[in-house]
């Protein structure tokens, strides 16, 4: 039986991110931040993959992916 635990996480495409910070405002866990005005970055240890940031992102550059925990 496969016992690998999977968790959902937000993943940002840094090359397309406009660093507007819309995602930061909606994140209930403060798990995403805009780093040095260039791109948003997800704090992997905090993110639970709820998808609020992905829905809010005006450029739609955030996706929710399943990653191995």
């Amino acid at each position: 039986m496969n016992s690998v635990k999977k968790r959902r996480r937000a993943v940002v495409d840094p090359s397309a991110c406009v660093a507007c910070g819309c995602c930061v405002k909606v994140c209930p866990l403060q798990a995403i931040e805009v780093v040095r005005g260039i791109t948003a970055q997800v704090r992997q240890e905090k993110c639970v993959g709820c998808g609020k940031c992905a829905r809010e992102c005006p450029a739609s550059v955030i996706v929710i992916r399943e990653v191995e925990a």
Partner: protein
Amino acid sequence: MRKHWYDNLWIVSLLYLLLGFFNILFAWLGLLCFFIPLFIAVAGGTKGYCNRYCGRGQLFSLLGGRFGLSRRRDIPGWMKSKAFRYGFLVFFFAMFFLMLWNTYLVFAGAQDLGQAVTLLWTFRLPWNWAYHGTLFHPGVAQFAFGFYSVMLTSTVLGLITMVLFKPRSWCVYCPMGTMTQLICRAKNGRA
């Protein structure tokens, strides 16, 4: 999510647009939306203005989000491409300098004051009701008309893309946002 004082700056943006209907000289206040983001980017190396204080973004967020005036679809790929964003920045600034040139012509006495607001760089709307003379040179009013045209045009574009795509779609191609991101890149290196 904790509310901060700056989460209410959409009121200032709305007030700014309304004031332009009563006295065009209030348009000068809009320069704050140019200098504050630039100052934060140059001095602090962040997009703090976009991230926290942009009242226009908050206004779109409110209208498109809470008021549901947005289809909430993905913005087309070309609109978030670097080519479009940088192209729009260049176009926007070309139009901005054209506006400054017109202001200069009025200051130099080579052109009369045009009491009109130009929407989408094309449509001249009579706006004489908002002009009651100025203590200063007519050129001061010419700049106000020109600057208010820039602000109103970008608001209208932002509202259109808010309805068609996501609430803050304007942020994707906002010239100030693009410019401050470029400044942050230059300052901080490619993170």
